[in-house]
């Protein structure tokens, strides 16, 4: 049960940080006094980010940020452009390697991790500007999400009989369920390149779902969508969260959406954390408001 204890300790550390940041808009001090919503219900910490700093050639993209994500919650990361939100995701799934700080996922701390290792450990992700495999059909794109779950070797693949075939079909079944869930059956066999933006976003979500991740990172899942599409997307995200019990961390600009979806919100500004807590609480924070209105720079 080392992981569990580890997890707990992490919870404590990060949430105290969270709480203080939530209430006192300073962000650096750490007095573990006021326990906040995060710990009050007994959810275990899935991932915790501690004092992470990331910089490109001297330019600090992220500066000493700590927060945590609890199992089964929807965690929003918000902040004005250039706040370092996407960089944060890139750090979490190992695309960037922070100069300082540690990331603890499922109780296992790690420093440097290749993206595919992150994927293998159960972190999936969608992208701000859709990153689908343009040359493939919707079906194949979602199928590609199963890559980690398929193991048949070259030999069987070459013959495409027996195990390989069976495996392919098993996974097709699962993928079809996702396609059904996202209501993209009618574009199943179409190459994704030609699809309208909204649908592409949906396919990308499907691809991430296919990985059956423990933690799903969504980078502006609703960017550039019209109201109706946003509502659909929210529906899927919620469904995903409470039917598949998937933990979700999402970056979103539309405050309305965040309020509806998120259990807790982290606010970044210029690479620093300026708020952390339940949406309504965060909304009150003066510093957050300033950041959004571009005051106090």
């Amino acid at each position, binding site marked *: 049960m080392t992981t569990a204890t580890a997890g707990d300790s992490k919870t404590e550390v990060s949430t105290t940080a969270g709480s203080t940041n939530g209430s006192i808009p300073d962000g650096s001090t750490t007095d573990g006094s006021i326990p906040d919503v995060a710990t009050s219900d007994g959810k275990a910490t899935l991932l915790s980010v501690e004092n992470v700093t990331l910089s490109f050639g001297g330019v600090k993209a992220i500066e000493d940020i700590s927060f945590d994500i609890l199992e089964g919650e929807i965690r929003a990361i918000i902040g004005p452009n250039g706040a370092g939100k996407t960089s944060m995701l890139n750090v979490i799934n190992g695309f960037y390697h922070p100069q300082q700080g540690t990331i603890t996922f499922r109780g296992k701390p790690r420093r440097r991790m290749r*993206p595919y290792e992150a994927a293998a450990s159960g972190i*999936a992700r969608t992208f701000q500007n859709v990153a689908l495999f*343009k*040359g493939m059909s919707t079906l194949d794109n979602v199928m590609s999400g199963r890559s980690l779950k398929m193991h048949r070797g070259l030999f069987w*693949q070459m013959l495409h009989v027996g195990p390989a075939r069976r495996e392919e*079909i098993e996974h097709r079944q699962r993928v079809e369920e996702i396609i059904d869930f996202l209501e993209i059956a009618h574009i199943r066999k179409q190459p994704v390149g030609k699809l309208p933006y909204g649908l592409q976003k949906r396919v990308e979500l499907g691809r991430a779902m296919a990985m059956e991740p423990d933690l799903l990172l969504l980078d502006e899942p609703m960017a550039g969508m019209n109201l109706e599409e946003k509502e659909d997307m929210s529906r899927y995200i919620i469904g995903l969260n409470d039917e598949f019990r998937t933990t979700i961390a999402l970056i979103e600009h539309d405050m309305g959406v965040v309020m509806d979806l998120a259990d807790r919100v982290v606010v970044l500004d210029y690479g620093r954390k300026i708020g952390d807590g339940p949406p309504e609480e965060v909304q009150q924070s003066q510093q957050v408001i300033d950041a959004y209105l571009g005051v106090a720079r």
Partner: protein
Amino acid sequence: MIYREAGQYKTSYASDQALLPIRQDRIGLLLILVIAFVIVPIFGSSFFLGSIMIPFLVFALAAIGLNILTGYAGQLSLGTGAFMGVGAYACYKLTSYFPDVNIIVHVLVSGLFAALIGVIFGLPSLRIKGLYLAITTLAAQFFLEWCFIRIAWLYNNNDSGAIEVPRRYIGDLALTGPTATPVTRYLVILSLVAIMTLVAANVLRGRIGRSWMMIRDMDIAAELMGIRPLRAKLSAFAFSSYYCGVAGALMVFFWLGSAEVEAFDINHSFLILFMVIIGGMGSLAGCFMGAAFLWILPIVIRFVPSVLGIDMLAATTEHISNIIIGALIIFFLIVEPHGFARLWQIGKEKLRTWPFPYASS
């Protein structure tokens, strides 16, 4: 129009994922196979078999090899010729050491050596992308060419510096060497190519093939989906080089009969590349179309003058065909950058939706 898909429904994923889900396609392929395996050997003149069909098949196979790497895995390669060479020399050494083992086995094994070399020169692909990668493959090309010349052991130290294909039999049927008939050689190659094409198709539609295309389309996303770039790329290099290697071995043993380093020079690398481009990146059918086009067109051009009764130096026609092919490549890139395969695809789509101009629903 010829496509009548009404009433063709799939009741299992197996049938839905079949290589040719549409009945008419299956029939078409069957026809082609019958023609290739029965009609051609019976009616084909030895010139037609030996100088058109056999080379065509060899190049088609090599093109498949290159297409797997470039068209499916997105790794540009200018070293195809050299990898073919590896296969050829490997096969030559194998059959000199183990003359009693069936030559076809040797051909298939020699591919493995090509694969190995391919992997070695594929290693840099982890860090190097796109045009830059071309240089590594060029390095392979020239380095290997150099080896083929300098390492006399490869051609059993004979003075000609060429590899002479020995006589090899199955039972008392001559497979290789001067006594082997075009028909036999054609049928051997055809069978191998047919099987290997099927294998390639299978791999490409499975997990591994998908991982290649993922790397090709968006390597970053692929990595975040859990694909190990190195493994994916190297497997592509290995697989591709294997095909090139086998093609090379077939080229020497079942077509040329003897070969020197020139048979594997950079120009051949380019020829195969053109075949892939004109045929269509990322399409197996395209490999055959490209190979047919680029191999048969020059022959046709060579014949045109004599048909028109103009006497013209072989060299001249050579040059003219160069110009024409070059022009055609440009033309194709302008009208349809994705080659014959795409043209065929478009045509097929038209036929499927006929009389409608597109699928209205």
